[in-house]
């Protein structure tokens, strides 16, 4: 009667039925908007279209603050104002929430271009950091299990120190503590348009290191769940230890790590919001700035919360799909933490 146990703390879990349909519909709209905004202001695409004789279709020349909303913000605001003034005999209980809803819509419509830019940067930070993190995580995990007494201790210390301290403190360390930002700005490539600002690079460095420690833990647990007989079997056909790890243990173990890895992806998507505190204009930072400009803190944080939910739920659903795709029969059952 009970369904299979699922103990890992994934953000969303399995979604089924009508809820799933709603999530898919809303998620589809959300990503259409995000990708449309991205394409509309993309330098490269604009260059391409200009080259084929369509210079004004895309607007990559506009700074984020000059971009036009796609929804009629003024209209929403107007409705809210009208409702508020000539409420007539209608109960306050009905009118007040309505006024608020229209004000919320007006704010959302107005902030939409800036929020899209932020959401794009959020995705960008997450994807790059997860990707780079993997290149540290795999060697760290392998060293931890198969390394000598010293190298495996170093690997252990690395993962434990990173996992034992707050991400926000790590961001401060890299941004305010180390002269990393100044160092990065010194490179000439940084002046090429389209490159992220130095703060964003620092954020990617910090996120890469942070996520590498968590990814390493998932991978280590996964590698350890591979039957030790597999490595023995590999050695017995004449593979070296390293070859055995590379061709037999890793291909199996990394599959076991997928549930944990996708979990970490969603986790970082949420925690990338902390980059706001080192001035990276990602989604949360954009919202905070709009809050300071308009003093509508509650409303903008509500909107940004919904946007994060859309990002997280769609990503989690995508990751669930990915998990089911890549499992081989008999290899890789969900095992993970966090």
């Amino acid at each position, binding site marked *: 009667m009970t369904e299979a146990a699922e103990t890992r703390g994934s953000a969303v879990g399995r979604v089924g039925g009508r809820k799933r349909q709603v999530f898919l519909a809303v998620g589809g709209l959300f990503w259409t908007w995000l990708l449309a905004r991205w394409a509309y202001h993309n330098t490269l695409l604009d260059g391409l279209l200009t080259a084929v004789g369509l210079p004004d279709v895309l607007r990559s020349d506009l700074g984020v603050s000059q971009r036009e909303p796609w929804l009629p913000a003024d209209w929403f605001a107007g409705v809210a104002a009208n409702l508020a003034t000539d409420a007539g005999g209608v109960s306050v209980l009905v009118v007040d929430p309505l006024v608020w809803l229209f004000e919320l819509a007006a704010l959302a419509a107005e902030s939409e271009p800036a929020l899209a830019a932020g959401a794009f940067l959020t995705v960008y930070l997450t994807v790059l950091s997860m990707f780079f993190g993997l290149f540290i995580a795999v060697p760290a995990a392998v060293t931890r299990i198969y390394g000598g007494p010293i190298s495996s201790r170093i690997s252990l210390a690395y993962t434990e120190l990173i*996992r034992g301290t707050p991400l926000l403190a790590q961001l*401060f360390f890299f941004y305010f*503590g180390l002269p990393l930002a100044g160092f990065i700005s010194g490179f000439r490539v940084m002046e090429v348009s389209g490159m992220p600002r130095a703060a964003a690079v620092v954020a990617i460095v910090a996120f890469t290191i942070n996520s590498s420690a968590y990814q390493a833990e998932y991978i280590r647990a996964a590698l350890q769940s591979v039957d030790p007989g597999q490595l023995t079997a590999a050695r017995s056909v004449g593979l070296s230890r390293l070859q055995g790890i590379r061709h037999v243990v890793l291909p199996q173990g990394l599959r076991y790590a997928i549930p944990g890895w996708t979990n970490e992806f969603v986790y970082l998507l949420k925690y990338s919001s902390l980059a706001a505190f080192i001035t990276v204009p990602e989604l949360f930072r954009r919202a905070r700035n709009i809050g300071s400009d308009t003093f509508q803190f509650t409303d903008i*944080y509500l909107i*940004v919360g919904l946007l994060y939910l859309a990002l997280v739920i769609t990503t989690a659903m995508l990751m669930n799909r990915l998990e089911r795709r890549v499992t081989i029969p008999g290899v890789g059952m969900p095992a993970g933490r966090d």
Partner: protein
Amino acid sequence: MEPVALLSDWQFVVSNWRFLLLGTVVTILLTLSSLSLGFLLGFPAGAIEVYGDGWLKSAVNTVGVILRGTPIVVLIVLFFFALPIPRLGTVPVIDMQMNAFIAATLALGLRSAAYQGQVFRGSIQSIASGQMEAARSIGMTKLQAVRHVIFPQAVRRSLPGFQNEFTIVLKDTSVAFAIGLAELLTRAERLYLQPGRDTAVIEVIIVISAIYFILTFTTNRALDRLQQRYAIPGGNE
């Protein structure tokens, strides 16, 4: 100010140990209050997700998805700005604003409840259905069976998950920085923002990171002990 400015950055951090200690107290208080709230609500939430039905189960599930799917910083600022928390002033000595503390506790605690609920739900579901049937077959009511047979086993199986949750909450108290609560990280910033102390950033951050690390490390070891102590003899869970 003169004599202070002559100190090296490390000496500067050490001479402010009391200032950081008070921040550590706030961090610990916030961790404890959030975890307690998380446990008090997460426990029933997990049970409802398994045994509940209809709108209640669906509501718990939806609220859980929202809490788990939103970044903690958004939850903290949202609770801080949106909830009508009365201005209760500041706790002396530790310089803790009560309304920021309450907002942070609610955000961290409710989100933790959402995660602890998942842990607990998974533990309940991992208990063989024969346990429930055996309990019912000696005449226990469903409630008695859940209380005396399912829960005691589920709680034990949840301990590793709760332990994990402890570490996460402790680290995430630092996000209360966003609403200026005088916890460890906020106090660290106040230290290096003092005039002429911008060179001490690295030293301050290293020291507070060490404090966080010691807190997570020692508590984890203590909880490991506790788990061994309450493990069921011969059981591999």
